[in-house]
């Protein structure tokens, strides 16, 4: 039994990082065994923000449970909603109108950029550079404004519902997205200048927190963190949903597997998402934005599973239906939980300062881990 405060029997230093700590970006509690400044072991303690979302969903109807998923990974709430809507559509065999599909993909990609931009700022802040954080928020604010106009919310959108999207696009949408594309294209090289090419940043991240392809697979690391280890795991490519198979984009793959590779993959993904938005923004089909569905959704008896690519990785939604109006059992496979499990493996033997860099490169969102 390890004492929470003090030292272990071997004389190692035990330190509690969190649940309130600037680097954990939420209520994550890490019990770290250290020898001087070198990390010997990390033990994540979860449960500080557990809201029992999966159990709650069992008493909510198929239209209602989608709203709780916005609160899981709050930085990619659109994509969470998308995953759940896809599941209900798959179970009920609902045909989604092409306009709704285009709007969904646009919103997903805008969300991905907003999430990655915030991560970029937070990662730099973890490494001690405060300024990028504020620059990141400048671009994120534009996306939030776009979302606010169309969806009526800035963080927990609840915009994608079974059969399509809740409202049609706001008349300003196209013009505002074009303005965003223009500004973001200007600012991306600035991001690279400020952080990517910085000698200190490179020294702090290159060759650090190495995760091999085998380890990435065995820990179930997905998303940009998995792709940085060479694991082709972009659901949009390997198992296309919505209209992703009709769009052209590259899966950002890297083979280094270190913190800098994870950083680079996300920088590439921002550019790819921007190109997806550019492809779609002037080609949104006319028509309905919401398919006609029955007032009460009752999927047939059986088990259903869908997966989508959130900004952090693969989100799986698994539902057992008894043919009733509410799910019998629901389970989310959240990317953050699996990514966190690799943290101990990646940080052993590194310095405490590196823990912050490695944790930042995993882009953890704590409510996604705890649900």
């Amino acid at each position, binding site marked *: 039994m390890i004492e929470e405060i003090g030292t272990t029997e071997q004389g190692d230093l035990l330190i509690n990082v969190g649940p309130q700590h600037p680097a954990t970006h939420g209520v994550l509690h890490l019990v770290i065994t250290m020898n001087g400044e070198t990390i010997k072991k990390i033990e994540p303690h979860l449960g500080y923000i557990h809201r029992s979302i999966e159990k709650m969903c069992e008493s909510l109807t198929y239209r209602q449970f989608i709203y709780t998923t916005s609160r899981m990974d709050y930085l990619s709430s659109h994509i969470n909603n998308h995953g759940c809507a896809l599941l209900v559509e798959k179970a009920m065999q609902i045909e989604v109108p092409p306009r709704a599909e285009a709007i969904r993909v646009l919103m997903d990609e805008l969300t991905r950029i907003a999430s990655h931009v915030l991560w970029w700022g937070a990662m730099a802040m973890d490494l001690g550079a405060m300024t990028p954080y*504020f620059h990141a928020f400048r671009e994120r604010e534009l996306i939030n404004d776009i979302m606010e106009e169309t969806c009526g919310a800035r963080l927990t959108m609840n915009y994608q519902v079974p059969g399509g999207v809740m409202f049609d696009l706001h008349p300003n949408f196209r013009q505002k997205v074009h303005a965003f594309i223009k500004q973001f294209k200007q600012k991306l090289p600035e991001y690279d200048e400020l952080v990517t090419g910085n000698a200190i940043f490179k020294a702090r991240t290159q060759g650090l927190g190495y995760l091999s392809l085998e380890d990435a697979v065995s820990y179930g690391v997905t998303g940009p963190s998995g792709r940085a280890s060479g694991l082709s795991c972009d659901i949009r490519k390997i198992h296309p949903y919505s209209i992703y198979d009709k769009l052209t984009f590259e899966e950002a793959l890297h083979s280094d597997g270190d913190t800098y590779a994870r950083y680079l993959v996300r920088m590439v993904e921002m550019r790819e998402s921007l190109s997806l938005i550019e492809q779609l923004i002037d080609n949104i089909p006319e028509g309905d934005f919401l398919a006609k569905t029955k007032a009460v959704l009752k999927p047939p008896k059986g088990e259903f599973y869908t997966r989508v690519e959130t900004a952090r990785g693969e989100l799986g939604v698994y539902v057992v239906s008894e043919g009733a109006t509410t799910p019998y059992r629901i389970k989310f496979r959240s990317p953050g939980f699996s990514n966190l499990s690799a943290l101990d493996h990646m940080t052993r033997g590194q*310095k405490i300062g590196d823990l912050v860099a490695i944790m930042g490169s995993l882009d953890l969102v704590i409510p996604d881990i705890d649900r």
Partner: protein
Amino acid sequence: MLSLRSITDSFHTWLLGLVGDTWTLVIEMVLVGVAAIGLFAVLGLILVIMERKVSAWMQIRLGPNRVGPKGMLQSTADTVKLLVKEGMTPDGADKLMFNSAPFLAMIAAMLLLAPIAFAKDFHIWDINIGVLYITAISSLNVIAVLMAGWSSNNKYSLLGAMRSGAQIVSYELSAGLSILTIVVLTGSLQMSEIVASQANGWWIFKGHLPALIAFVIFMIAVTAETNRAPFDLAEAESELTGGFHTEYSGMKFALFFLAEYINVFIVCAIGATLFLGGWMPFHIGNWEGFNRIMDYIPSSVWFFGKTFFLIFVMMWFRWTFPRLRIDQLLNLEWKYLLPIGMVNIVLVTVIAILKWHF
């Protein structure tokens, strides 16, 4: 022209006529002490508001803008808040060390104000070993940091203090070597003589490349010595929450905070004095008219202008760069800065012996 020297001289004569020798000395010492404390407080406030404004400007924010005109009284309001806050001492802390550490930090910073030439003929104490005095006293700061970190009985504080100890002790060598280059060129340790030797040009221009290298090393080393980003490992907010001052609150925290800014001011003042000519105006060869105009600008404006420019550069570092890791930090010092500094001082010695400098 009304110079500071004539004011102080006439005041001295007037006081001498009024009271005796001893009392004149006592009164003058008290006055200087009060002035130093006043300068300490005012500089702290100015630098805090300057840092906040500079960071806001770099981070596309407005910065403090509510208290007073353009938010200029914000740091005063903050100080009042910190003054009335309860001074807490944690249960497990070593009370004597915990409570005396912030005062030691402040005293070490204040002692450093003594030999600096703020304007023409305007020192607190023009000691003949001024540079040596500065390098000696500036080492005291590390004791305050170690005391604070050790006595807090907090692991974050301890880690921060140990990092700080390693860092300050290492970087003092480089700072000392780069100061030594100017001492070699000038042949004096006295601040007033170092300034006087730059009457016909600042050392950064006169000393060829070695002086420039020494200046760059000096700026890097003192940024590390004052524990500021990218070398702020002793605090390292995202790693160690607050580093050595995690457990401090209220006025005790404010003293550490003030001492940090005063240290920044002092190292920049030393940099300005050694490399940029102190209060000496900027002159170009035989451009008589230009030099005459430059002479009309008061010497105190020159001194504070140069110092605040260097402070701005340090703030620029802080708000641009990520933080180094502890082993990289020590590598930078022991593998790069120190060997370069040593070669540099040999070069400077050769230049000084052969009188190659202008």
